[in-house]
């Protein structure tokens, strides 16, 4: 297997590519007819994609038996949080015009904003406890339990997207189906690997 430090660099550089292109296009005024909407939509989409990618790591590792993939999990999750934060900032600046009161109003009145806020808020403790030091401090078991919140955050993110579209629900439904498959995989693994599972079957 190649050097994980270099492989991580590859993932990092690729994860920064969309941000760089977004900034580049923004600087040259080529974000399309509605640049604000484009930037908000694209960063939201990136947050959701990275969250899904981070959730794919463990199933992929179990299916292939290649533990190497775990090297990327933390970085993918942190990029999901990062793009989510950029998404929130753009919404706060352009959609709400720097007005915190209007953000809170929006959150209480609009289910889709509430879901989005919940997704990001759920990712916050995961980002904070993502360091090796924090894993040690919490203990592996507690840390693992806490980080199952990533699934809840992903569902909130998908709900946020689903409630936003007018009639064509194909894209958010696609995310929902992918997430469902990941969850079913976890469930199967849990049922077949819990202590005493074999005894129960026998």
């Amino acid at each position, binding site marked *: 297997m190649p050097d994980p430090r*270099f492989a991580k*660099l*590859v993932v990092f*550089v*690729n994860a920064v*590519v*969309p941000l760089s*292109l977004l900034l580049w296009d923004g600087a040259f005024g080529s974000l*399309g*007819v*509605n*640049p*604000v*909407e*484009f930037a908000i939509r*694209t960063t939201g989409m990136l947050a959701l994609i990275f969250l899904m990618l981070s959730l794919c790591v463990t199933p992929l590792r179990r299916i292939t038996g290649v533990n190497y993939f775990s090297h990327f999990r933390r970085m993918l999750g942190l990029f999901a949080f990062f793009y989510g934060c950029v998404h929130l900032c753009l919404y706060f600046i*352009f*959609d709400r*015009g720097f007005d915190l009161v209007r953000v809170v109003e*929006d959150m209480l*009145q*609009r*289910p*889709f904003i509430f879901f989005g806020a919940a997704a990001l808020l759920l990712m916050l403790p995961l980002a904070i406890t993502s360091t090796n030091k924090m894993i040690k401090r919490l203990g592996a078991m507690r840390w693992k339990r806490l980080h199952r919140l990533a699934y809840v955050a992903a569902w909130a993110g998908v709900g946020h997207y689903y*409630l*936003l579209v*007018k*009639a*064509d629900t*194909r894209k958010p439904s696609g995310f929902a189906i992918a997430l469902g498959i990941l969850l079913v995989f976890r469930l199967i693994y849990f049922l077949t690997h819990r202590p005493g599972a074999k005894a129960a079957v026998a």
Partner: protein
Amino acid sequence: MLIRKPDDIPDKEITPLKDYLNRRNFLRAGVLASTSLATGWVYRKLNFPKQPVTQQAELADLVVATTQPSAGGNGFIVNEPQTPYDSITHYNNFYEFSTDKEGVAPAAANFVTRPWTVSIAGLVRKPVTFDLDDLRKIAPPEERVYRMRCVEAWSMVIPWDGFSLSKLLERVQPLSSAKFVGFQTLLDPRRMPNQQTDVLPWPYVEGLRMDEAMHPLTILATGIYGRALPPQDGAPLRLVAPWKYGFKGIKSIVKISLFADKPPTTWNVAGPNEYGFYANVNPLVDHPRWSQATEQRIGDYFRRKTLMFNGYGEQVASLYAGMDLRRNY
């Protein structure tokens, strides 16, 4: 000629050839560059459909507006910066072609609108089927600069070219029993490829109350910026009622019918609690899922307040006197 090696660089400090061409670093740089290029390519591919250049013929008999922009008056010419032609023609909803606002223009680029007929039937004394040239004879297109407010909370200012719907209706002589006007878009899944999906019930239908249809602001548009309406914006003929949300402006009309009862309208059928029959622009009545208080004017970075009846209250508010606009959204 003899070229001497400068004396100030000692031999041992000159990079050996084998390091200079370090195979490993070279490969790594290659991996970084190629994966980044691939990621960038996918990003661009997913986000920016190749946009066709929209070049339409100029309308021959266009009547340029003579009324000066004013605060009151008939509302025919709004005195606000006009949205660029490229934005109007490359960012809009036309679900028959694509549900992606920037995907409509490329998907509609080859949509042929000749020949084209529009039939007018129902509760009229003189039902008739027009072709496009007959329609043009009803009234020459005149310029109307209207605000366009989408239910999704973005807006434009569009210089339409068209004629008052009332002129067409007067021609077919509505019966006194006719209380509503219904419109229907072309149904042809081969020419309108997204009609092969079921994102909406097809064909797209819309409707107006008779007094709304007869209002001087309500036009059938055949052009934008003095040029023939491009396919992505509803060629060859579309409805424009500027005080209503954009989805009321049904595109590529093939049939107009007069009814005694309220006809079904597509978005109302698709989401009855979200899209009403009237769909008047109203900052006080929110869409159940998002606010209608503000809007993003295309070309601006920050939002502006949405105006009651999209700023056409002086002209149309009387149509709804005594009506509960919260219930009749």
